[in-house]
């Protein structure tokens, strides 16, 4: 049934699913429909935006493996949308940190970046995401040609940095970061296995030709 979904329908589903956390955040922030951010609203906004950024980043990384394993070719249509939403939540996370948490005080922010490794790692992930978001348009893709694919492989180290950033800020209970790390390993491992397979095939072909 899923396989027969039209690309346009799929895009709508992805759009609604990816915006749901934002809607939920808005309801809770403004106390609509009984929503609330709880006792520590700044922390709640910060953590929730970061969490959804990381979640959607992992979903983006899952698109290709799921597409290849299930044969749902249309899935590729939602990769950019989900990736841009991941970037959106990460930007929100960075804005909450800079404006609400640190009140744009440059000194403490620089201290955090230099002295707290988990902040350094998180900042690196954010900075690396920027060129990917900027070059996400069709025009960019056409202009950059093969280099576009190379550039967008940056999403692999970004995934690693993102999970690492999350792991390092957890106080003691590493269950959830461990699960995310396992998912990331599976997603990157799938690509590594594919790469090995392709290399072997290429080597065999080269041998055959000679």
């Amino acid at each position: 049934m899923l396989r027969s979904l039209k690309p346009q329908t799929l895009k709508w589903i992805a759009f609604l699913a990816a915006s749901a956390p934002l809607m939920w955040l808005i309801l809770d922030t403004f106390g609509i429909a009984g929503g609330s951010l709880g006792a520590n609203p700044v922390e709640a906004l910060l953590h929730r935006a970061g969490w959804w950024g990381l979640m959607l980043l992992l979903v983006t990384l899952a698109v290709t493996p799921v597409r290849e394993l299930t044969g749902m070719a249309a899935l590729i249509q939602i990769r950019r949308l989900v990736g841009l939403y991941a970037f959106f939540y990460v930007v929100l996370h960075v804005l909450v940190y800079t404006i609400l948490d640190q009140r744009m005080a440059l000194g403490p922010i620089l201290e955090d970046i230099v002295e707290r490794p988990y902040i350094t790692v998180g900042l690196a992930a954010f900075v690396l995401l920027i060129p990917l978001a900027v070059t996400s348009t069709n025009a960019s893709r056409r202009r950059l040609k093969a280099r576009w694919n190379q550039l967008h492989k940056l999403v692999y180290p970004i995934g690693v940095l993102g999970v690492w950033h999350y792991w390092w800020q957890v106080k003691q209970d590493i269950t959830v970061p461990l699960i995310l790390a396992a998912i990331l390993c599976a997603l990157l491992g799938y690509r590594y296995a594919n790469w090995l397979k392709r290399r072997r095939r290429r080597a065999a072909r080269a041998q055959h030709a000679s």
Partner: protein
Amino acid sequence: MTRRRLDAHRPSTITAESVYFDRRRLLRAAGLAAGGLAASACGADDVAAVKSASAPPPSSGDGKFAQLKQSPFSTSQAPNSFEDITTYNNYYEFGTGKADPARNARNFQPLPWSVRVSGECEKPGTYTYEDIVGPHAFEERVYRLRCVEAWAMVVPWVGIPMADLLKRFMPTSKARYVVFQTLLDRDRMPGLRRPVLNWPYTEGLTIAEAMNPLTLMATGIYGKPLLPQNGAPLRLVVPWKYGFKSIKGIVDIAFSEKRPVTSWEEAAPSEYGFYANVNPEVDHPRWSQARHREIGAGLFDDKVPTEMFNGYGEHVADLYRDLDLRRNF
């Protein structure tokens, strides 16, 4: 999901808070505050002066503490709402999320409760909750609570001075430390099923810290018995130390000659020390302790500077005269 449960609590919450503010205003108006404060200050370690509680301790979650003594140690800062105090908790025995304890401890019945007292003292034994609190007058103490995670609350505790309680067990001269442990009951505390910390949760104080007039064995909040997520029925409160020192659900008190290894110290010795005094100059390895966020503040409120010993230096700084607080964090 959480909202519905909170709403269920709301009517009692509002009553408690309004009664609370009302009483304080009445006291002030009557000019009783100043006189009462002086009297209880000099009687703090005089066990004979502590009248036995005229009302038996409340036995259900609905009972209220009668005749609360006001304390000179109370801050004039406005306490946090009952809702904030009872929904934003660190109590890993009930889960590691801040909202987990309120959810997972909902059906936890603290009473009957007993505490094992052992070690270097002349009156070891097993005491029920009623034995523990029976001879003491309950006091209300509004304390600041500063968590090691860089947030803080103001909590109107009800409790008894720890020194008065510990003296009843007659610690010997060998008792240099007091070691506390939390209940370890896997059936009633779902968080224990995962080895997040080396259970049971263990905390400790030097005997001087335990006997300090600020140190409280808390039994309630806002004039009512503690809710399970806040450590019912008995918990420690040491307001000049990071919150994790104020161990909840105490079932074991041991007087010891040796310093115990506390749970957080064991889990991450580079991050959490035995003393864990609030200290803005010694950062946690992963975050700054110079400032903290006040619970109850709005989205656009700034953090506030953290004070040495959480502002209780005049009562406790002497305890650490000869201690390098940078190394003994």
